[in-house]
Every structure is written in structure tokens, then in C-alpha cells.
């Protein structure tokens, strides 16, 4: 199989685009939750699925909520959002939620907002459109993620991961934007055309 990797230039452009998207996402999340939020500088890399699963399993220190949301269009893929129990509890407290179902809903909402804002902004920059599937909260125990068929469809993925922090509320989450092979190819083409415009 052809190995698709991003050149330094491509990475730079993507990083710039992501920074814009993240700025936007941060503002929306902060507005939605009525709290001061910050997102760390996105970390972008192309990795093999095995590595991704290893990264996921590193997160399983304590019980985690794990949600995913697919997005479709020329730029398509899936987002995976991780938030641990403590952070989830803090989120529930902040939103004054009554039940665990409300908490699940709030986590899905957070996933949706992050996925939507990040990918919409990114797509706009790249002159394309995306649509979103409903997010879903995974009941699969983290140690079994590797066995989840969905992840077998990826051979390599672009991982854009960032930490979401609400300092005052002690809420930390980690979101991965994952794209498959064909999207990586599309992305490379798109990034190069943007590069040409810049030069």
C-alpha cells in the first residue's frame, strides 16, 4: 500500500488552517458552556492504525467516556472524543445536570460542537462542505476498542489531537479528528493548491 505522508509544507498549511478552526471552536464551546475554555495547539500527524489504537489504550488509566461522530463530504472521517470520569462529573456539575443520561447528552453535545466547528471551519477554508452524522457514545470498554470493526477500516489516519481545558471547572478532554486514506489524498491535493496560491 502507498504510504501517504504529509510534507512539512503541507503540515504547516494544515496547522494554520487548524489554528483558525480551533480558535473558532474554542469560542463556540466557551459560549455554549458559558465558561472560559482553551484548546491546546493542535498536534498533527499521520500514523498507522496500530499506533492509533496504542494511543487510545494509553488513555485508559481510569474510566473514560468515549464518543465518536462521523462526518461526510469530500473531506470525511470520524472524530473521537475522550473525557475522563472526573472531568465528566465536573461538566455535569457545571451544567447543573440531574441524571447520568443528561450527562451523556452533554458529552455528545460537546463532541458535536467540537467536531462541527473544527471540521466546518476546516472545510470552509478548503472550499468544501461537510455533513454530520449523529454522535454516539461508545459503551465499548476501552480495552476492546481495538476489536471494534470501525477502526479496522482505517489503515492510516491523520490524527489531529488537542486538549480541551476549562481551567476553572477542571474539565479536560482530548479530541482526535481521524481521516481515512482517500481523504488524506484529497487533503494533500487541497493543501497543495492552497500552497500554490500562497506562493
Amino acid at each position, binding site marked *: 500500500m502507498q504510504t501517504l505522508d504529509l510534507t512539512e509544507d503541507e503540515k504547516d498549511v494544515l496547522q494554520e488552517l487548524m489554528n483558525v478552526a480551533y480558535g473558532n471552536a474554542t469560542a463556540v464551546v466557551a459560549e*455554549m458552556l458559558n465558561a472560559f475554555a482553551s484548546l491546546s495547539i493542535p498536534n498533527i500527524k499521520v500514523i498507522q492504525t496500530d499506533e492509533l489504537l496504542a494511543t487510545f489504550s494509553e488513555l485508559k488509566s481510569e474510566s473514560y467516556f468515549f464518543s465518536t461522530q462521523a462526518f461526510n463530504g469530500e473531506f470525511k472521517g470520524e472524530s473521537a472524543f475522550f473525557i475522563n470520569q472526573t472531568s465528566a462529573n465536573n461538566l455535569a456539575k457545571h451544567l447543573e445536570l440531574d441524571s447520568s443520561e443528561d450527562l*451523556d*447528552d452533554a458529552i*455528545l*453535545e460537546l463532541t458535536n460542537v467540537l467536531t*462541527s466547528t473544527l471540521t466546518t471551519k476546516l472545510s470552509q477554508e478548503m472550499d468544501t462542505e461537510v455533513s454530520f452524522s449523529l454522535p454516539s457514545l461508545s459503551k465499548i470498554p476501552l480495552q476492546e476498542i481495538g476489536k471494534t470493526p470501525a477502526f479496522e477500516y482505517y489503515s492510516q489516519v491523520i490524527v489531529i489531537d488537542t486538549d480541551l481545558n476549562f481551567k476553572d471547572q477542571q474539565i479536560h478532554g482530548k479530541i482526535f479528528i481521524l481521516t481515512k486514506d482517500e481523504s488524506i489524498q484529497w487533503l494533500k491535493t487541497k493543501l497543495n493548491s492552497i500552497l500554490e496560491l500562497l506562493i
Partner: protein
Amino acid sequence: MAKNKTQQYIRTLDIDKKIVANIDNGIIVLDQDLKIYHFNKWLELHTGIKECNILDKKINDIFDDINSKTLKRKIKTALRIQTPTFYTASTSKYLIPIKINQFHNSSFEYMQQDVSIIPFDEEKGLVALILTDQTIMANTNALLEANIQTINELNAELLKERDTIDKKVLVIKFDKTFRIIDVSQALLELLCYDKEELLDKNFLFHEKYHMTKDCQMRLVQSMKALKVLEFEETTLSAHGHTICFKSTLIPEYSSKGIHIGFIIFRENITDSKRLAKSQEKILASSRSAAMGEMVSMIAHQWRQPLSLINTIMATLKIKKELEKLSEKDINEAFAKIQTTTSYLSDTIDDFRDYFKPNKKSSEVNILSLFDNSIFFLKEVMHQNNIEYKIDVTQNISIDTYKNELLQSIINIIRNSIDAFIFSDVEILNKQISVNIQKLESHISIIITDNAGGIQKDVLQRVFEPYFSTKSKNGTGLGLHMCHTIITGHLKGNIIMTSNENLTTTLIELPYTILKGIK
């Protein structure tokens, strides 16, 4: 032309409106204050509420269950990010309560809904809520979850069982090519092997040095015929210890019934083998002890005839010295000596005969058997003034091992005699009596002595090996041997009881050894 016509026709239709009106989804248009702008036909039909009655009203006033805070937040977010926000059936169940009328949807009372909140009119702050019925999916999920729960429970149970089997049961598995594919932890521990040392090895090759040719052949034959085989095998542990197994070979089949290999269940019988061996040893030493006793009995038997010969010889010598020895005297003396020596010879023969264990059972007349026993003992009984009585109502014969039974009888009577000899008190009317009876399924032999009885704690232990009350004089094997012979070889029972000064030994024997006592 055709294309233009189609386009013209399409324009005359209000496609969006018609389709939206008939779409299988609920559609509500709301503003940020949750005021209703549109409530489609689907919702009218499902809720029984007419759009005209609720326009301009707040949706949370119509449906009390709605959490207005959450809904407002979602609407605000959708308008802000200009992409949809959602409620999902899996977490939020439903937004608009719609009772389910289908019987097979038994898990839920209300329709389970996915709701997409789509930004509709940014200026006016309107959103469209699109409701999708997800009840069937939710139902399937609930069912699946319940089944997963059951499966997990069963799986946990199975794993526990497997763990127990692994730890407790001696099992080895190999495939059709005899490649070892699994060995239980219990067997590995017993054989002192690591699993890796045995896995992938050829079972037959690994075992062949320890197995007899005959056993190997039977094993291979059963494997070929896919038959169950029970066999005994001896193998060596990694540390060189001999381990005896009683094993069962079972062909293994896949869930589709295809033969995939074999399982051997093993039972460690090393200890019982060892016990049997020591039992044999005890029996052997009890035989030699009995022989020793018998030699002393023979000595008793011989004393009198030997002194007879001595007397005859002395008489001959005196007569010769007095020159009164006639031809007739010599002939008479020789004849007497001959009779006596042949008697001595017979005694030896009998002795030798009786102490050879029988290989085959034979018809044994019980009365003559007792006569034979008493022959060896009558001298010592006579010396100790012990009266011997036997009471047999009928002529009784059974099929048994003669010499084994004879030895046992002698032992028991000898024990009674010893009880008299070693008694601390003077016993009047010393008596050993035997009563033999023919019963329906077996014969009973009751031997009673009045030598003072046996204490209860002693009585409980009389059949144990090396148990003796006679200190230096006993080997402690006599009665143990009797017990082993009668219950083991002769398929009978032996019970000893004591009452006041009487000791009674009850022996029950089957009519034929093959059938045993029913």
C-alpha cells in the same frame, strides 16, 4: 426539449412542501424562545394535536417533559455554529412524548427519537427540529444489551469453570496429527513441565518411552477407530518421578460434528498403586509370619511321632543287645517307622500344599476344611485344655480359594487359642465353637471363644495391619490378612464382635466367588 418539459412540470409542483408534508419524520420549527412556528402533519397524526391549536405557543408549555434549558442551549449552539446539534435516542430517549401502539415494541412506552436541530433562519433565529423514529433500533439495542449481559454472565461462568478444570482436572488435548494443543495447569504441575515444553510436541512420540507396546497399540487402534478407550499408563515427570494414570481417551469433535482431535482425561492413581503394592507386601509378610507359626505347629505334630520312632529304635537296640531281636520284631518296627515317617511326610506335604496360594477357585467342603485346620491346631488345643466343637447342620460346599480360606480359619482359631494362653485370669471350660449355616445368598461361619472378650477400642482396630495386643508374640498381621483375604479375594465379609467374655467372629462367604454376596 424533453428536459425542458420536465423542468417546467417540476416547477408547477411544490415539491419541497409536498414531500415535507408526507415525510416519515416529525418536523417542528421553533425560535430561540421555543415558540412554535410549524408542526407538521406527521406530528399532528402522532400526537393528536393540531398545528393550528399550538402555533405561537411555547413547546415546553405543550409538552411538560421537555427540559427547556437544554433545548434552548442546543438551539443557541446550532444557530451559533451553523451546523446541526442533536438529541440521540440512546441517551435522551425522546423529545416529544408519543405513545407506542405496536405490541412488539414492548421495551418502550414512548417512541424513541433522534432529533436533529438544524439552523433554519439565522436572522429570525429559527431552527427546524427533525424527529426520526428510532424505536425499532432502540429496541434492538436494548435486546442486544440484555443478550450481551447474559452472554457476559455465561462467559464469566464458563471461564470460571474452565479455570477450575484447568486447575483441578488432568487433561491433555491433541489434534488429529497428535500435535499437543493444550495441557491443563493441573497436569503441567504434576508432570513438572512448562506448557511451552509440551505444546506442539507429538503426543505419541512424547509418551512412547513410558508406554508399554501393548498400551501404545490399543491407543493407536482406538484413535483410528475414533473410539473411547480406558487404559492405565505410567509416565515420567520432568524430574523423573514415576506417575501412574488411569486415563480415558475421547475423540473430540467440532461444534459441526467434524473430528478435530483427542482429549485424554487422566486420574492420578500413583498413590493407590503404591498402596496396593504395600498391601501386597503386608500380605507377603503375613504369609511368612503364618508360615513361621505353622512350622511351630508342625514341630508339635512331629514331636510325638518322632519320639515314637525314637522309642522303637531304642527298643530295637535293647532287644539287639539282649540278643532277643527277632525277624518279626524288626519287621514290625520297620512297618511302624514307615507308617510314622510317611505320616511326617504327609504333614510336610499338607503344610506345603496349604500355603501355596490357589490360582483357581475350586469346590470346597467346609466341614473337611475345618477338619484340616484343626489338624494343625489340635495338639496345642489339647495341651491347653481347650474344647473344640463344631456344629454343621448340612453338608456345605462352596466355590472358593481353598488355601486362602484355610489360612484365614487357622488364623482366627489360632487367635482364639492365643487369647486363652495369654489370658491373665484362669478360665474354666475353655471352649472354641464353630457354627456353620447355609443361608439363601451365602453361608455364615460363626467362630466363638470364651477367652474373656475384647475391649471396644481394641475391637475397632483388630483388622488394621501391624496392630497387635500380644506385644512381642504377635506380628499384628494375622487378622489383617484374614480381612484382606476374606473381603478382597474371597468376596465375603468378616465382622468381629465381643460380648462380656465371648468373642465372636462372623464370616460370610458367597456360594461362588464369581457372583459374590448379593
